[in-house]
């Protein structure tokens, strides 16, 4: 009988001690903010395209941290989704948007056709389009995230999404991918 009492007492005391310890630790080492949101945001591509249904990447990151689905980011593609799944400890899900081949693209305005309506300027989430009412607009390609958002609002369909061209500085050393055809164009030798 006394053994039981001792056991109960000991366990209670232990529970108390550890409870206090845990409580103390929770206060003392409290983490400010929600670092999970930051981690999620770091994984998102920051195109600010809004295709996830949230206005920008940060809100979507907050939503993911709050338990939203991880498959709503088409620009990030499967790679981002998998990283998110890894981070959040959930199963990877197929993207709900059809995924195209991931080639980085930027918007390009066919300037002759632009009527200067400023609609694309309003649509651009990163202010990468320059222009004014009734004047021709143009895209600052360095700033363009390739989010596609300016294409739909254009009343005259003069915006194209063109793949970014490779230069000798951005070349990825895929030796086998060098098009041999190119050589024949110049001069047969």
């Amino acid at each position: 009988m006394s053994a039981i009492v001792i056991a109960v007492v000991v366990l209670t005391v232990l529970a108390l001690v550890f409870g206090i310890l845990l409580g103390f630790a929770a206060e003392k080492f409290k983490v400010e903010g929600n670092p999970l949101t930051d981690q999620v945001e770091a994984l998102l591509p920051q195109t600010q395209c809004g295709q996830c249904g949230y206005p920008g990447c940060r809100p979507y990151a907050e939503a993911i941290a709050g338990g939203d689905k991880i498959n709503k980011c088409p620009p990030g593609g499967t790679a981002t989704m998998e990283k998110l799944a890894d981070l959040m400890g959930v199963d990877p899900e197929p993207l709900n948007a059809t995924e195209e081949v991931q080639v980085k693209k930027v918007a390009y305005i066919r300037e002759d056709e632009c009527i200067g309506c400023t609609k694309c300027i309003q649509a651009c989430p990163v202010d990468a389009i320059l222009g004014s009412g009734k004047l021709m607009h143009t895209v600052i390609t360095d700033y363009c995230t390739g989010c596609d958002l300016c294409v739909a609002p254009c009343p005259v369909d003069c915006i194209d999404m063109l793949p970014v061209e490779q230069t000798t500085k951005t070349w990825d050393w895929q030796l086998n991918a060098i098009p041999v055809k190119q050589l024949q164009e110049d001069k047969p030798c």
Partner: protein
Amino acid sequence: MAFKLASSPHLKVQLQTQTVMRRVILCALPGIAVQSYFFGFGVLIQVLLAIIVALAAEAAVLVLRKRAVLPTIKDNSAVLTAVLIGVAIPPIAPWWLVVIGTLFAIVLVKQLYGGLGQNIFNPAMAAYVMLLISFPVQMTSWSVPLVIAQNPMDIGLSLQAIFGSMSMEQLNSYKLGFDGIAMATPLDTVKTDLALGLTMTESLNKPVFADGFGVGWFWVNMAYLAGGLVMLKLKVIRWHISVAILASLFVCSSFGYLLSPDTHVGPLMQLFSGATMIAAFFIATDPVTAATSVRGRLIFGALIGVLVYVIRTYGGYPDAFAFAVLLANLCAPFIDYYVKPRAYGHRTGN
């Protein structure tokens, strides 16, 4: 007009993996020769048997894995593994022992991990340990060195012994020395004697120690040492692992011997008996399962030396290299992780 495109460098030193492996095998030949001189044709038969099984097993697994068979077979790595298994197994052990061991080494230890370069454990040693644990009687039945045997074995008898057409009594008769006492390896003998309460000197008076190191074993070790030195010269192996093993074994055993000469095997006997030299130069230096950096290899070798000494002295098994090498194999990734060399332009500690 299609040029051949390739990344630099466009020059290569003409030392290929298969050349490296072939050189290792060639350098092991003197040791094998000496071993078969002392222990009969059984050694050669076991080696040949192991090679055949190893090549067949490797080819079969590669077919199953849908890989190119010929290039892999040609890299000689399976042959090397087979040679090491062949010399590690008692010369009169039954044929199925070497077959099981080789299959285990090639199929389980090597190919199932992804083939050459991917295995964690040294295939030959893993197979040896598996056999030793599974078939302890057969694995410890070394034949008596021919020069002191009561009934020396010729090639026919060896074949009979290995392929099972020999009765147990007959077989046992070949394990008898000229004094009619069953004999084990020198280190085994010492271990048994020490357990029986005999001192080192008493044990060493036995005929198996006629030349001070155990008949035959000294010369076998010397032959492997010679082969190892040739490998160093050819730059087939680097010196770090071998030297570290021998040095740490020497230091440990000297220490023990100085403390208590009656209960400890002397350093020279440690170095020139049992599997010391073949292990130090041919087994532990297998680059796949060893540490990679220079410092890492020194640590790796020293670890093997210490483990060998500890297991030989205090363990239950007579020779310890297989265990020591496998344990060190386990530690190799760990060693590599912590022993990163300082890269150019980085301060130490980075």
